[in-house]
């Protein structure tokens, strides 16, 4: 009892005199800090799991134990929590790739036993520096070992991470008396059992209720994007507080945010696309301060983001699993009385989700191609691998990560980061991968069922998550028999349709050739040979013009006059390139020799400037969309486009139908400029978007 009172005092110091333990918090602290057990805490986000390990650390340090080692994938998000821990005198340090200059000082702190808590990312566990410099300082003295997001160690967890396999081996090798604490917000029975099996016998599980008392759920089916945009515009004014709108793709966040801004809402897109140029911490801060009312986000706004006064979470598209959905919708209503979780779903959801599932793992071919290339060398950089293996950068990174954990590939940092083949044998874990993919498909099916579930929605979610006590909530639209309107005004729908049609999509110029493509040349493309900023009419497959482009290319074999008219409108009224193009030319194709030139000719006539087909294919190249990374794409274009000796001067509009990598336009533009044209303005009917996945 005395220890409990003392711990309560510490808790007061941290979060305020009027606070008490939440149910389960003291039990978990007692398990690790007093009984020195191994424990798994399953509690919803915001419950206060960090309090458990901070208070346990404090108690253990007071007993003379060594420092706590906390493994978490979310180091950057823990700044606030570290400040909170400082209130009870916990000195916490982080080792990550961004603070190399502090490492030496941290080593010293450890040597002097002045560090209470060491935060590291799972990736760091395998780094030589950590093993050789940091670990020896704490070895044999680890007071508490904490694994944050412990569901990641399970194949059945929704975001299985290969790095966590290393953590399992480490936990198994820890000396017997070292307490271990796993924490997670989302683990169904199957995941809990798996964690138990891997952490070894004697793991006690502390599991809390997942239900959020303030949350009102509702599902609404509106298949067209324009209808859903209209619904947002019509219903968002009903919310006083702030909220998040989740989308599945980067392009969707930009589009929805654009629409909302046009309709006068305070909304911003938030994602990890755009080459990571977005200042996400600034957006988070502005949202936390309620300077932005609505954040339109991909899952990049992820685990660990904690804003207590979020009033609504609306899904513009349906997430792939109940776990993911519950985690996202659970950001609403942590400290507000009434909050809303609205799931809109549409026709494109399954297509996008299936794409995510199919691209979840690299194919066996990719694994084997990478190994084959590595076997021929002493070591290759990521870019050297991409120049040899036809796969996307993110796929190659995924494959390398798995191969590394499997011991087939090692990494060295002699001069630059190089991957090399180890002598260990490697066989593809097809069964394991298929099992995970099957799981994803059944999770998707469960989500599909949820959308049309006629009874209590909260109860459905709780049952799916193996909540110990799932009961009907009495608050969701199904329980109450009413909710927000499920239909929208036709006027707004038409306006949204027009918005989609007029949505300007910029085509930024490529400024550098891919790494490894021209090893003996400078990478940067000289400014005078770069394209100007161009436009595309739409995203391929979009509800707007996208469908017309698709059927024009693959069914009618010709792009209709409607698309010519729309293009003229975008170019003349919205884009207004200055100086205006003096002539038009087209990207040649051997596969569809007339398709693009025919369209370009009609476009030129409508713009009242001449069409001059000066570019031609010198040989047949595989379709650009089959090329999976920059180096492969660029190589596929080189040498397949030729140009007439004499071409018109003056700025030129360079027309293509669907752009994929942008390398064809970059190469064609380069040739045009070199042969004496003026500015090159690329224009494409559609942009292929599938690869702008869920970042």
């Amino acid at each position, binding site marked *: 009892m005395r220890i409990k009172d003392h711990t309560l005092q510490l808790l007061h110091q941290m979060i305020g005199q009027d606070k008490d333990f939440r149910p389960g918090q003291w039990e978990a602290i007692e398990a690790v800090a007093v009984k020195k057990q191994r424990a798994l805490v399953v509690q919803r986000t915001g419950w206060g799991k960090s309090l458990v390990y901070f208070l346990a650390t404090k108690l253990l340090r007071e007993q003379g134990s060594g420092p706590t080692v906390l493994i978490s994938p979310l180091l950057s998000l823990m700044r606030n929590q570290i400040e909170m821990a400082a209130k009870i005198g916990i000195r916490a340090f982080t080792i990550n790739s961004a603070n190399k200059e502090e490492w030496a000082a941290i*080593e010293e702190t450890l*040597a002097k036993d002045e560090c209470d808590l060491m935060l590291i990312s799972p990736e760091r*566990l*395998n780094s*030589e520096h950590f*093993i*050789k*410099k940091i*670990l*020896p*300082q704490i*070895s*044999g*003295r*680890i007071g508490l070992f904490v694994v944050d997001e412990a569901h990641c160690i399970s194949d059945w967890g929704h975001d299985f991470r290969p790095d966590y396999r*290393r953590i399992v*081996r*480490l936990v198994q*090798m*820890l*000396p017997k008396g*070292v307490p271990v604490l796993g924490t997670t917000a989302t683990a169904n029975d199957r995941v809990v059992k798996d964690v138990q099996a891997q952490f070894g016998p004697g793991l006690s599980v502390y599991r809390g209720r997942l239900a959020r008392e303030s949350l009102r759920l509702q599902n609404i089916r509106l298949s067209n994007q324009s209808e859903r945009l209209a619904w947002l515009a019509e219903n968002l004014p009903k919310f006083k507080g702030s909220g998040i709108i989740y989308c599945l793709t980067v392009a969707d966040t930009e589009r929805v945010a654009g629409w909302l801004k046009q309709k006068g809402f305070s909304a911003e897109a938030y994602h990890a696309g755009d080459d990571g140029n977005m200042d996400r911490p600034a957006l988070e801060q502005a949202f936390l301060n309620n300077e932005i009312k609505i954040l339109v986000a991909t899952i990049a706004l992820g685990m660990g983001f904690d804003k207590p006064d979020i009033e609504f979470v609306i899904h513009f598209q349906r997430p792939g699993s109940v776990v993911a959905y519950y985690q996202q919708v659970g950001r609403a209503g942590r400290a507000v009385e009434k909050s809303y979780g609205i799931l809109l779903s549409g026709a494109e959801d399954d297509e996008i989700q299936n794409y995510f599932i199919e691209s979840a793992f690299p194919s066996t071919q990719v694994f084997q191609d990478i190994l084959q290339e590595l*076997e*021929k*060398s*002493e*070591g290759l950089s990521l870019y050297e691998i991409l120049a040899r293996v036809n796969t996307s950068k993110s796929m190659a990174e995924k494959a390398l990560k798995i191969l*590394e*954990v499997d*011991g087939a590939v*090692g990494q*060295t940092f002699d001069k630059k980061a190089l991957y*090399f*083949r*180890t*002598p*260990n*044998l490697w066989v593809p874990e097809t069964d394991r991968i298929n099992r995970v993919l099957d799981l994803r498909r059944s999770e998707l099916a469960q989500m599909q069922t949820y959308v049309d579930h006629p009874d209590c929605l909260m109860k459905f979610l709780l049952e799916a998550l193996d909540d110990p006590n799932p009961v009907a909530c009495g608050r969701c639209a199904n329980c109450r028999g009413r909710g927000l309107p499920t239909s929208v005004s036709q006027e707004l729908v038409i306006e949204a349709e027009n918005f989609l049609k007029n949505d300007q999509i910029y085509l930024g110029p490529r400024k550098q050739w891919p790494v490894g493509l021209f090893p003996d040349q400078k990478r940067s493309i000289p400014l005078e040979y770069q394209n100007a900023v161009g436009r595309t009419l739409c995203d391929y497959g979009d509800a707007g013009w996208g469908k017309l482009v698709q059927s024009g290319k693959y069914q009618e074999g010709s792009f209709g006059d409607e698309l010519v008219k729309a293009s003229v409108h975008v170019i003349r009224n919205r884009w207004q390139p200055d100086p205006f193009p003096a002539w038009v030319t087209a990207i040649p194709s051997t596969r569809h020799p007339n398709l693009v030139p025919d369209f370009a000719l009609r476009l030129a006539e409508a713009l009242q400037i001449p069409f001059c087909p000066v570019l031609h294919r010198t040989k047949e190249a595989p379709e650009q969309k089959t090329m999976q990374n920059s180096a492969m794409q660029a190589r596929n274009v080189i040498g397949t486009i030729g140009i007439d000796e004499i071409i018109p001067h003056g700025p030129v509009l360079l027309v293509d139908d669907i752009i994929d990598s942008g390398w064809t336009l970059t190469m064609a533009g380069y040739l045009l400029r070199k042969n004496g044209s003026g500015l090159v303005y690329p224009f494409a009917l559609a942009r292929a978007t599938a690869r702008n996945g869920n970042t």
Partner: protein
Amino acid sequence: MILNPDSQALLLLCSHLALSSSLEYSPLSLRDWNPLAKKLQSLSIRPATLLGLNTEELKELLGIPEEVSERIARLLQRSGSLAIELERLESLGIHVLTRADADYPVRYKQRLKDAAPTILFYAGEKALLGQPGIAVVGSRHLEEAGQVCAEFVGSACGLSGLVLYTGGAKGVDSLSMNAALAARGTAVGVLADSLEKAIRDPQKRAAVSRGDLCLVTPYSPSAPFSVGAAMGRNKLIYTLADFAIVVASDVEKGGTWAGATEALKEKWVPVFVLDYPQMPEGNILLIKKGAFKFPHPFPGSYHQLKTWLESHSADTESEPLQPSLF
């Protein structure tokens, strides 16, 4: 990886694994370990018994001074990080053998006794270590006769089922090793520097994966090259083999000279020296010191090499010795 507890204790006590160079205590050298091993043996204590003991208990059990027992206790404390480091090495294809392992090469214990390294790191097929075979040594820079000899011995080993033992370096080592592997034979390279780096070489890695090559070193797998290490590993080449052939040696300097004179003195194996009219000065002097002559060109076919070596060294037979336990 499953380690037997005795090996775990030896690794904790005698290896640099998971030890920061900035720490004030260092692992036990052979000179530190051998008396301790004898003491354990006389008390009938397995090394594994030491795991988990504190300074006081160690002091009492072994009757050793406080500062020694403190050093041992601290070394033994790092089992967690040792496990992580071993895990990393395993994932690179690098394994360990200690004097407490059943698979530790018997020839080292027999021939080197207390000088047998406590710990070996290896990649590839460990069963090759100590199988019948021929060691080839010599400087990196070779005349034509030396090159021909290196390749001849390599091919002969490959074609007659003998293991070729070398230092795994350039020159003589790689010429003979490539010849042995090309003949679908097997080879062992006893490295003086980074094993981690050596197995990145595509050719060596492929042979290691096939189980045709074992690379082994008593030094840390990431150790840089050092002259001392190169000298120290010479005896580890000779003592695995049945015969040694010195292709070319300097006089009174270099690893080849030092290793060959040591081998002649210790009589681990019959030592042959390549003999031809323009042979290096070192070869002449080694023959004067008692090495057998190895003629150039060899007067026979590949298959006759072993019999020839046996019949030309018949008068020397190194006596077997009782090896120590660990």
